[in-house]
């Protein structure tokens, strides 16, 4: 599969770097704490939140257990409504399909709505290689793109940048991409947003091809749903002649009615609003309104491997709200870049190793980037038991075993003695060596929990050590003890 972050250092090293960056940590702390508090208020408004959450989880479980059925239903509905459906087994195939579709229009540029799926597949670089320029239009994505940078948060991808840096990036880079920044551009956010508005407006008005993801795909009707705030999504979804949407196969919900659950869960969990400023839904094409051609690219890229794992499968319920990032003491200190993929924070720690496998040192270290405090589970609107999956993946790293990779059953070796193990150890130690991250986690964990994961206390083997952080550095039970002891002493552990 395509790696958007070739050459990324494993989690702990990147995390260490972020920890030393005072400004980055200040920005992150401010952002996560602010959104976290607002989310709590938005959620508290609904006294049936836990019921909505249970319904959301159940709808997604139903979908995942019958995913082939719902995908075929969606395919038929989209086709019936005038769309064309494509299937991509991996990132390379998805990128090839999109590039081919763009070329067939004769165009050499596309406007893009923020989409995690296309970040995951590295679409922009793939299009670039085919001579097609992709313009990101979400303000934060624009900042990231113009800054030759990578996103660090799902909801606010440029949160690691402050206003002065953004002004400098706009002044320096905008001219090379289109309308230059105004001469005397200051660093007031309203002024910067205005500069982005002017810079992008000419692109929207002339764009012939739009590329998007989707938050939901309704199987029974073939309807796609995109939630956003700025209006760049509406521009990309309605002004071009051709619209190409790359959508993970897990984004399906069975019925139109099911949206009543997710349109309540997602905005409050994500931007902490009762409703986000704009939501667009469309079904195929409509005469005289919006794109004349609509292509849906259904993306696997490791999702079916996660689906094959009965514990890990629940990660596919994720609706990418980013609530788990904002409460995570490890994310707050490590920053989004340390996770080395489009998916930072707790969700990245369980999703990336499942999509890409755990043989790479970075991916093997991700399940250790957690104190297992459980705060992520608490806020997850679809009740993904992230700690349970983390522990499960740690066992996989340590003990190896049967997994599904690229659709085939394979046996992976224990990480013992490999680079993957060393990376995992460093991630674990990094987490332990930052007591404030741990303590913050414990404080959150000690609050009353609903739907709390109960399995943690009884997990065997290596899991035990991670679920009882208070006893550290007391000796954990077999077989984890040997493994830990051996590597505490191993040379090179400080690299």
């Amino acid at each position, binding site marked *: 599969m395509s790696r958007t972050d070739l050459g990324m250092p494993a989690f702990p090293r990147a995390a260490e770097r972020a920890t030393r960056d005072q400004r980055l940590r200040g920005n992150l702390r401010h952002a996560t704490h602010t*959104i976290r508090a607002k989310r709590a208020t938005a959620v508290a408004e609904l*006294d049936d939140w836990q019921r909505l959450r249970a319904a959301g989880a159940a709808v997604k479980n139903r979908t995942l257990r019958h995913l082939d059925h719902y995908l075929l239903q969606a395919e038929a509905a989209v086709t019936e409504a005038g769309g064309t459906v494509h*299937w991509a087994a991996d990132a390379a195939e998805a990128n090839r399909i999109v590039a081919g579709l763009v070329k067939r229009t004769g165009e050499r540029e596309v406007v893009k709505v923020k989409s995690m799926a296309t970040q995951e597949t590295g679409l922009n670089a793939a299009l670039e290689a085919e001579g097609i320029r992709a313009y990101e239009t979400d303000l934060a994505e624009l900042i990231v793109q113009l800054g030759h940078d990578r996103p660090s948060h799902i909801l606010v991808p440029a949160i690691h940048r402050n*206003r002065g840096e953004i002004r400098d990036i706009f002044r320096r880079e905008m001219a090379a991409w289109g309308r230059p920044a105004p001469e005397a551009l200051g660093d007031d956010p309203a002024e910067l947003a205005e500069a982005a508005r002017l810079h992008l407006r000419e692109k929207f*008005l002339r764009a012939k091809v739009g590329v998007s993801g989707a938050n939901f795909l309704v199987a029974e009707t073939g309807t796609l749903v995109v939630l956003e705030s700025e*209006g760049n999504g509406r521009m990309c979804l309605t002004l071009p002649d051709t619209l190409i949407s790359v959508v993970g196969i897990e984004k399906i919900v069975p019925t139109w009615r099911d949206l009543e659950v997710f349109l309540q869960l997602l905005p409050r969990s994500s931007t902490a609003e009762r409703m986000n*400023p704009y939501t667009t839904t469309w079904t195929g094409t409509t005469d005289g309104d919006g794109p004349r051609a609509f292509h849906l690219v259904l993306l696997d890229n490791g999702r079916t491997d996660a689906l094959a794992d009965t514990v890990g499968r629940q990660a596919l319920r994720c609706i990418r709200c980013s609530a788990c990032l904002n409460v995570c003491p490890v994310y707050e200190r490590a920053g989004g870049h340390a996770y080395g993929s489009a998916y930072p924070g707790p969700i990245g720690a369980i999703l990336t190793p499942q999509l890409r496998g755990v043989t790479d040192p970075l991916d093997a270290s991700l399940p250790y980037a957690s104190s297992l405090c459980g705060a992520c589970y608490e806020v997850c609107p679809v009740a993904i038991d992230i700690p349970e999956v983390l522990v499960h993946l740690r066992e996989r790293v340590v003990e190896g075993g049967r997994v*599904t990779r690229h659709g085939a059953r394979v046996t992976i070796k224990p990480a013992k003695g490999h680079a993957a193990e060393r990376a995992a150890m460093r991630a674990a130690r990094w987490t332990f060596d930052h007591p404030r991250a741990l303590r913050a986690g414990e404080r959150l964990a000690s609050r009353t929990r609903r739907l709390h994961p109960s399995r943690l206390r009884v997990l065997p083997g290596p899991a035990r050590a991670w679920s009882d952080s208070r006893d550290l550095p007391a000796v954990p039970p077999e077989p984890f003890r040997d493994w830990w002891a051996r590597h505490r002493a191993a040379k090179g552990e400080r690299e």
Partner: protein
Amino acid sequence: MSGGRDVVLGRIRRALADVPAAERPEDVAVPRDYRTTHTDDDPARALDLLAARLADYRARVHRCGEQEIPRRVAELLAERGSRAVVVPGGLPSAWLSRAEGVEVVTDDPGLTHARLDGVRSVVTGCALAIAETGTLVLDASPDQGSRRISLIPDHHVCVVRAPAQVVASVPLALPRLDPARPLTWISGPSATSDIELDRVEGVHGPRVLDVIIATTDG
């Protein structure tokens, strides 16, 4: 292309080997004991809530009787200094009857995006409004027009007819909407918090959203 399809479907079926062959999708229970609405049935209360929630997200709310719509529309256009306004083909013609000296451009597929970009305001109706979330839903009906007309101009005046078009909650809204139509849900003017989490209103969509809640027999 069919290669990818067969590959993905095959992988899914193998991945779901643990799901009993006899299990149907409906066999996976979905508890629906969440609320249909968080608001009581009183229509007057729903209207007040709608107005409050719209304002909370910085839409400007104007309440009046139905007969007052033309005057309110004229005032709002004048206030923004709009010389041109785009309207959907099926907008009640009376609504613009008081807007003197304002060029009225009618929504039409032949209008270029660039032409629309030169028009300051747009006036539309809506399909419905959701009180709890302060949301307007447009479904491209004749009094609302194509999606782009409520997007490109900088000033959107949206008329909600109360109480008929007001529902309390999201679960009450969905059954009244047709998924086959392109829908735009609008909750306040466009906004971003991407720079240091400072909220800035107005990025790409209309920066000013005026909502006229017009009560029948007002």
